[in-house]
């Protein structure tokens, strides 16, 4: 069992307050994504959990025990760094075995563990390869295997896939998700990419300016964003002021008609992305987005005036 409880955590760097009273409870086996733009405090929070920074105020409890009193090297935490931070002077096997050797594991134990870990990340047979001779994806896998070598209580990842191209990133996301599910390890993953967070997380923690804006399942965040920031960050790009309310409406819930009551605008541009048809519609000073499965709606030309409507039950009223 691993339960991580963070209470009123505060951290400043000089005049800059990186974390402002963060509280968060992570359940055993949960996959949490910390999501936010740069400088929102997500990496600082991860580094505090890892013990790479010292906090100013607040508590971090792991299974009820105060983690802040434990130095980084005794926390039993597996971490994958943004730069991966593989040891350049060691080959694949020795990178993965580093922590085990330090802990004094027997040679035979190390050998079986390294073989098992390499199999898990799909790199069997590359034991003797120099790290510099690995491809980007292979380096990622070695970093993951190394972080998991000591069977850590917590698995932390700091934007590990930001340097990969889109295809490889999707593949690595699937692998991480599979490994996490197989091991049932409590995982905290930092990212600025909402698509990545949606694909991976059981629960997404959206952070902004050192605070948690909202913590919830991907579906929660998408259909019931708590704040305008969350709605925009998560990719619901229609924030509409309507009858005294601020509504967040997903692009796919807007329907267009040639005539009718309600909001009117004109089509700025439309483009087809595979099966999906996306339109930008100018309404007053605002540009709204609408999407539909191509061929299911009425056809329009660019520049044409349209009437917008949506199902009131699908529009989410943001708190004022």
């Amino acid at each position, binding site marked *: 069992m691993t339960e991580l409880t963070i209470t009123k955590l505060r951290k400043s760097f000089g005049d800059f307050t990186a974390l402002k009273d963060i509280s968060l409870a992570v359940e055993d086996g949960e996959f949490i994504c910390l999501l936010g733009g740069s400088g929102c405090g997500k990496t600082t929070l991860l580094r505090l959990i890892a013990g790479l920074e010292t906090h100013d105020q607040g508590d971090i409890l792991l299974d009820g025990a105060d983690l802040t009193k434990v130095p980084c090297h005794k926390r039993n935490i597996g971490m994958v760094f943004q730069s991966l*931070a593989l040891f350049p002077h060691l080959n694949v096997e020795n990178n993965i075995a580093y922590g085990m050797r330090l802990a004094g594991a027997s040679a035979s134990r190390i050998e079986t563990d390294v073989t098992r870990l390499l199999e898990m990340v799909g790199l069997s047979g590359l034991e003797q390869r120099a790290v510099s001779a690995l491809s980007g994806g292979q380096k990622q896998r070695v970093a993951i295997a190394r972080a998991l070598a000591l069977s850590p209580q917590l698995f932390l990842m700091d934007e590990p896939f930001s340097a990969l191209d889109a295809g490889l990133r999707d593949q690595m996301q699937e692998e991480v998700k599979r490994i996490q599910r197989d091991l049932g390890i409590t995982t905290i993953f930092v990212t600025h990419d909402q698509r990545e967070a949606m694909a991976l997380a059981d629960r997404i923690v959206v952070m902004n300016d050192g605070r948690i804006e909202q913590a919830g399942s991907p579906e929660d965040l998408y259909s019931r964003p708590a704040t305008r920031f969350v709605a925009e960050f998560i990719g619901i790009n229609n924030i509409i002021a309507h009858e005294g309310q601020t509504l967040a409406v997903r692009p796919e819930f807007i329907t267009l008609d040639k005539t009718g009551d309600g909001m009117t605008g004109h089509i700025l541009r439309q483009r087809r992305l595979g099966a999906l048809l996306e339109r930008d519609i100018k309404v007053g000073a605002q540009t709204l987005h609408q999407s539909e499965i191509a061929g299911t709606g009425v056809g329009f030309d660019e520049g044409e005036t349209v009437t917008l409507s949506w199902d009131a039950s699908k529009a989410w009223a943001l708190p004022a």
Partner: protein
Amino acid sequence: MIRSPSYAPRLIGGLAFAVMAVFFVVPLIFMIVVSFYQPDPMGFYKVDFVWENYAKFFSSFYYSVSFRSIYSSALGAVLVVALAFPLVLIVSDLNRTWQLFWIILLLSLMCLSEVIMGFAWLILLSESAGLPRLLEALGLWDNPRSLSPSFGAMLIGLVFLGFSIVALILYPSLARRDRSIEEAAMTLGTPPALVFFKVLLPTFRTSLISVTLTMFVYLLGVFVMPTMLGRPKDWTMTVIISDKALGDANLPLGAALAVVMLIVTVIVLLASALFAKGRRI
């Protein structure tokens, strides 16, 4: 479209090559040629082809001098790097202002001539001022004597001379290093005190070896520090060579000794390079 080739790089490169040839290769060839000439006490040399200058090297005196040169230069080089690496490591983790302060300090140290540094240490180590008096005042030394000339004083001079050079060579790569490698080592259970030995030393092994070799060659050629701070029995081959060539006006012997030292240096460097290559994973 075919781009017409640019001649500028070749021209500049060729010029540099010509300068090297005229001012480095030609004197080297001249030195090798002179090393086979007959010494002439009246003039500098007589044109001839003899091996006797080289034969003189294989006497116990020159033998021991060359071993001593290699020993003191190697020891000096290792000491310089062993001191400079940890210091630069600390400096590279300071804030920008303090880093700048140290860089400027090191650069200004490099501006000092070898002679001025030698004199400074001569005064610092002398009986009437400096360290011995300080130790006496602190009650640590009853009967203070001058600490120079001595082997230790010469070594201090060599280390002081090479320190800023090594520090400035190591600084850029240490300042730009990926610090998350050290953090990764800590998350894998390395106590902070061991990170230096388990991660930093092995990561920088290659650059440390190459900078030590560079320092070794540099210190082999140092002339002022041994003469100012060392006893005659600490004098390195460089001092002996200039002593023979200029003092005794025996240019052929000086040239022969220089050629032998050149060969020995090249052998030492090649051996170290092969050793370092053989141990790479």
